[in-house]
């Protein structure tokens, strides 16, 4: 396991050489593509290229769900604007987060500085047709106080029949095409936290996704691993890999003392991803994460291997990745659309 990254890096270098003169690959090994460097709070937050695209994305992204959990609307606005001032430009959201509060608060925060943000939100059809999708897009744009998104993603591909539903005639994938044509979105992608196989199934349609979002942390390194199974495929296709759940969704490994917050975030940010989307619900947490992201240098091979070894002992039953091993993280509306009982009605 300790040398798993080495071949990857070699493979990456070869691929880069093969594409030299052309577009730079997505999610390159961090140092080559990064601006800035050196540890210190005055350093800028490094940026990386968005897959095959020229856009430069901050390696730390602002998660939309937790923004909607801030103490108040005013506090959320302060968090988002402080993030922009600190050099974060990747803003995540979803149509369904916190009954739309997340989009509304983010929209209020960026209304007068829209050009400084690479704005993403997600569409939550959960299997419904493109009409639902396009209606949600207009609602998202309205709440976010803008006429376009940089990135629009299919939210929460987590059920075994989701890929089939999304790619069915009249499904959400057709809405992605249409939104692009209408100039409402520049890039499209999909997200999910459940099973690497489902991500690969989505990719197997060879649809030109620009981005793919997935949970990436040092427990995922060995348990139902997106890092092993999906990340290389996404990078091979030149798509932008977006990491999430760097603290396992609920920070339980931190409470347990398996690793420090610096280790958890640095591990995730050291992977070949464009950005690591982080849930931030207060300025204290923002400052904590900025400190880690400023002048970021990827983990050395030995440290990364040691951390994986430490976490592997805890990873194998998925209790630190409940989004994979339980229904706890599956959105209520998604369960409802699929006709499943609510999370509260489930034994786990």
């Amino acid at each position: 396991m300790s040398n798993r990254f080495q071949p990857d890096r070699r493979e990456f270098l070869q691929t880069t050489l093969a594409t030299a003169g052309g577009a730079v690959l997505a999610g390159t090994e961090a140092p080559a593509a990064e601006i800035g460097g050196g540890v210190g709070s005055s350093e800028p937050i490094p940026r990386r290229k968005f897959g095959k695209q020229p856009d430069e994305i901050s390696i730390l992204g602002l998660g939309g769900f937790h923004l909607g959990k801030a103490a108040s609307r005013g506090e959320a606005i302060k968090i988002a604007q402080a993030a922009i001032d600190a050099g974060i430009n990747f803003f995540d959201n979803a149509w369904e987060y916190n009954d739309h509060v997340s989009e509304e608060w983010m929209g209020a925060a960026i209304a007068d500085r829209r050009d400084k943000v690479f704005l993403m939100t997600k569409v939550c059809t959960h299997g419904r047709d493109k009409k639902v999708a396009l209606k949600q897009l207009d609602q998202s744009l309205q709440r976010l106080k803008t006429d376009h998104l940089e990135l629009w993603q299919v939210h929460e591909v987590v059920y075994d029949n989701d890929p089939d539903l999304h790619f069915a005639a009249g499904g959400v994938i057709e809405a992605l095409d249409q939104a692009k044509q209408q100039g409402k979105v520049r890039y499209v992608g999909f997200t999910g936290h459940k099973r690497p196989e489902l991500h690969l199934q989505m990719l197997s349609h060879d649809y030109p996704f620009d981005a793919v979002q997935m949970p990436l942390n040092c427990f995922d390194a060995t348990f139902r691993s997106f890092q092993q199974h999906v990340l290389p495929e996404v990078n091979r296709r030149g798509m932008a890999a977006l990491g999430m759940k760097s603290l396992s969704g609920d920070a339980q490994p931190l409470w347990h003392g398996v690793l420090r917050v610096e280790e958890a975030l640095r591990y995730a940010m050291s992977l070949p991803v464009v950005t690591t989307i982080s849930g931030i619900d207060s300025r204290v947490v923002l400052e904590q994460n900025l400190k880690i992201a400023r002048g970021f240098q990827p983990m050395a091979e030995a440290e990364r291997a040691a951390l994986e070894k430490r976490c592997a002992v805890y990873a194998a039953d998925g209790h630190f990745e409940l989004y994979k091993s339980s229904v706890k993280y599956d959105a209520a509306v998604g369960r409802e659309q699929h006709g499943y009982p609510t999370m509260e009605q489930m034994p786990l």
Partner: protein
Amino acid sequence: MPAFAEPTTATADRNSGAPPGGRPADPPPGKIPLRSLGRANAKVSALGLGGHHIGDPKSVEEAIAIVHAALDGGITFFDNCWEYYNGKTENWLGRALEGRREQAFLMTKVCTHGRDAGLALRMLEESLIRLRTDHLDLWQVHGVGFDNDPELAYAQGGVLEALDKAKQQGKTRFVGFTGHKDPAVHLKMITLGYPFDTVQMPLNPFDFHFRSFEKIVLPEAQKRGIAVLGMKSMGGTAEAVKRGVITPEELLRYAMSLPVAVTISGCDTLAVLHKNLKIAQGFTPLTPAQMDDLRRRCAETAADGRFEPYKVSLKFDNPCARLPHGFPIDLQQKEVKQFLERGTGTWSPQ
């Protein structure tokens, strides 16, 4: 059952600010006395802050305020345990000690409950991360109480090997063990010969009469230069106080007047802390006559252990200790529910 020591153990001279046995001079008025940690080269405040109650306040901010007030009041000894509140208390104490680590004599406990040294060392790493430090001052084996605990600890590959290793690696300065159940089990742990620096036990005037750590274990520890750490000065649940048998002030004074290095006391509010600080600052031990008087008052209700439930009731067994021993647990029990509690809230440095 070992032979009882003469019941005069704790009545040795105690006219100085600290109890018998290589003690310093009277403390300056208003300061909590510092006492030697047995033969170990360290001094600790005569009153220590209990780790379990650090998890009682509603918020981390309240817990931090209590820890800071304790430091400001002259407490240097901080107790904790890997399994308290499923890690919450170590996390909260770690946050509170950030920037003030050097002012604290930091102790936590390892919870193998019979399992091996490898697990113990993993728990040590977790405790260090939660406590935001690279070393402990004292690391103790938690909850030695079942009859086979000594043999499991001393077994090849057992937890005592982890104590050695942690010391060698510089991750703890001193080592010890704790338990609240049975003085005979404590005595066995000690007499099997491992060079513990400390031993922690319940000490109060009820204990004097009933399955007595004070009579059976304390003299043996003293003889060997092992520092004694007292706990459960209120009898665990303070039931005797609630029933008007004795006051909390009397109980704390009694425990602190014994030949112990520190009396560990849980403070779930600033008000309780301030009451305890008031007793500990400029503390002078009770006279032998005062001690005997308190013992007499507790004698009648001590004999069936009703005010020392941790000795007599299986309900006070830690579920985390029962499970690895293969003993059943009651899922409806408060302690069991608490042990299943998880840390909550966004991860934050403050």
